C-alpha cells in the first residue's frame, strides 16, 4: 500500500493521462465483448427459465389434469411456486416471467342427429355431411416481458414461430399438448 501511494505521488499529469487513456482503450476493446457475454448469459438464463416453467406446467397438468392457474407477470402461480428466484417469484435481471392460460377452438366432429324416426314406406333419409362443433381447449403459455428486443428475438429464434411470437414487449410460447 505504501509503495502504491509513493507511486501515485510521483506521477505527473501526463502519466495519469496515459494510464487513463490506456484504460479507455481497453474498455473500448473489452466492453462489446463483455456486453455480448452478459447478453448471452441473459438469453441462456431465460431459455432455462422457460424450459423449467414449461416442464413444471406439463407435470402439473399431468398430475392434476389441468394447467396451472394463470398469474400476473412476475407472479408465480401456486403450482409453480418452487421455481421462484431470489429476486422475486418470476423476476429475473433484465426480464420478467409470466404464466398464462389461453383458449383455442378445436373443431370437433359432432355425432349425427338421428332426427325423427322414418315411417314405413318412406324413402331413406339423405346422408348429411359430418357436423363440426367448436370446442374450446385450454393451452398454457409462458411469457417473457422485457424491454430488450434482442432478448425477445433470441427467444423467438430459439423456439421458432410455430410455437411462439413477439408482440409489443412480450414474447409468448404456447405450449403444445404434447412436447
Amino acid at each position: 500500500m505504501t509503495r502504491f501511494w509513493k507511486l501515485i505521488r510521483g506521477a505527473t499529469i501526463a502519466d495519469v493521462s496515459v494510464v487513463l487513456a490506456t484504460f479507455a482503450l481497453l474498455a473500448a476493446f473489452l466492453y462489446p465483448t463483455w456486453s455480448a457475454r452478459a447478453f448471452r448469459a441473459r438469453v441462456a438464463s431465460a431459455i432455462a427459465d422457460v424450459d423449467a416453467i414449461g416442464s413444471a406446467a406439463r407435470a402439473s397438468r399431468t398430475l392434476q389434469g389441468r394447467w396451472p392457474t394463470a398469474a400476473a407477470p412476475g407472479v408465480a402461480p401456486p403450482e409453480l411456486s418452487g421455481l421462484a428466484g431470489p429476486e422475486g417469484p418470476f423476476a429475473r435481471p433484465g426480464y420478467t416471467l409470466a404464466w398464462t392460460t389461453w383458449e383455442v377452438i378445436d373443431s370437433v366432429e359432432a355425432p349425427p342427429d338421428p332426427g325423427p324416426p322414418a315411417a314405413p314406406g318412406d324413402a331413406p333419409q339423405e346422408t348429411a355431411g359430418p357436423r363440426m362443433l367448436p370446442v374450446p381447449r385450454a393451452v398454457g403459455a409462458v411469457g417473457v416481458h422485457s424491454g430488450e428486443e434482442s432478448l425477445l428475438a433470441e427467444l423467438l429464434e430459439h423456439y421458432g414461430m410455430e410455437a411462439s411470437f413477439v408482440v409489443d414487449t412480450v414474447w409468448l410460447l404456447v405450449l403444445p399438448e404434447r412436447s
Partner: protein
Amino acid sequence: MPGEALARKKKKPASRRKGKRSGKKASNKVPPEATETEAEASAGLTESADAAVDEMGADYEAPVIDLDADDIPVIDLDVDEAPDDAVEKLIAETLATAGVDDDAPEPDEPVIDLDASLDADIGDAGEAATPDAEAAPNEPVEGSPRATAEAATDQPVIAERSAGGAPQDAEAAEAAIRALIDLGPTSSPEVRDRLLAETLAHAEHHDARYRVPFSQAPTAGRWKALLALVVVLVAGAVATVPPRWARPDPPAQLGPAERASNLRLALLLQAQQVEAFRVRVQRLPASLDEVTQTLPGVRYVRSGSRAYQLIAYEANGNAIVYDSTSPTPPFGTLAPNWAFPP
C-alpha cells in the same frame, strides 16, 4: 612654493588614509612628511604675502625693525592677530582649500573587494568634476589602475601650475589653488562606456546563474501527453466503429416481415379467445375486457352480432386487420402448433 607643497600633499592621499584606517585622528598622529609639508607651505605663503605687500603700493612704509630692541614685532601666523588682512585671508583660504584641516573627520574607506573599483568608478561617473575634499569615499583605491592613471595625469598639471610662480595677489593665489585642486572631469565618455559594459557584463553573469535553459525539444511529459491523446483517439474510434475481430456476433433482430407475421399470430390467438367466449356465452364480447386473456397492442371492433375485427399496428403505422367473416390469406398460411388439436 605653495603649489608644489599642495601637489605633494595631493599625491599622498593613501598614506593619510592609512593613518585614518587605524582609527586615530590625523591631527594626533601626523606623519613627519606632512609636518614638513606644512612648514614649507607656511614659508611659501609668507613669501607670497611679502610679495603681495610689495605690490600694494610704494607708499607702503615698512616698519623699521630694530634687531637690538627687545620689542621686535614677531609675526606669528598661528595667532589670531594677523599683521594684515590680506595675508590672513590668503592663509585661511589656502588652508581651507588645500584641506589642511586634519581635524575634519573623513569617511571610512569602503571595503576593498572585487567590485570596489567598479563601484568607485560608477560613483565618480555620477559625481563628475566635484573637487570637494568631502568626496574622499569616491576617490580611487590606492594601487588601482584608475588611481595610478589619475596620479600620472595630475603630475604634469601641478608642475605646470607651480612653474608659473607665485600669485600676485590673493585672488590670483586663490584661483591658482583652485585650479590646482581641480582634478577636472573624473570620467570620459569612453570610460563611462567601458564602465557600463562592465556593469552589464557583471549583471549578465549574475543572471546566468539563475537562467534555466529552455529546450525546444519535446520533453518526456510532452511525449506522454501526445501518447495519451493518440490512445484516447484510438479508443474513441474503437468504441464508435469497433473492428471486425473485436466485435462479437450481433444479437438476433426482428425484421419487418417477422414483425408482421408475429402480429398476425397474435391476432389469431386473440381471435381464438373471442371465439371461445362466443362458444361459451353464445354471443360476441362487447370488448376485450370480457375475455380471459388479452395481448397488448390489439384492438377489438365488433360489427354486428356475428362479425368482429381485430386490429394491430406495425411500427411504421400500417394496420393489420383480422376479419372474422373472411380472414385474409396470410392468416390461412399460419400454422401454429397450438391451432391443431392434439
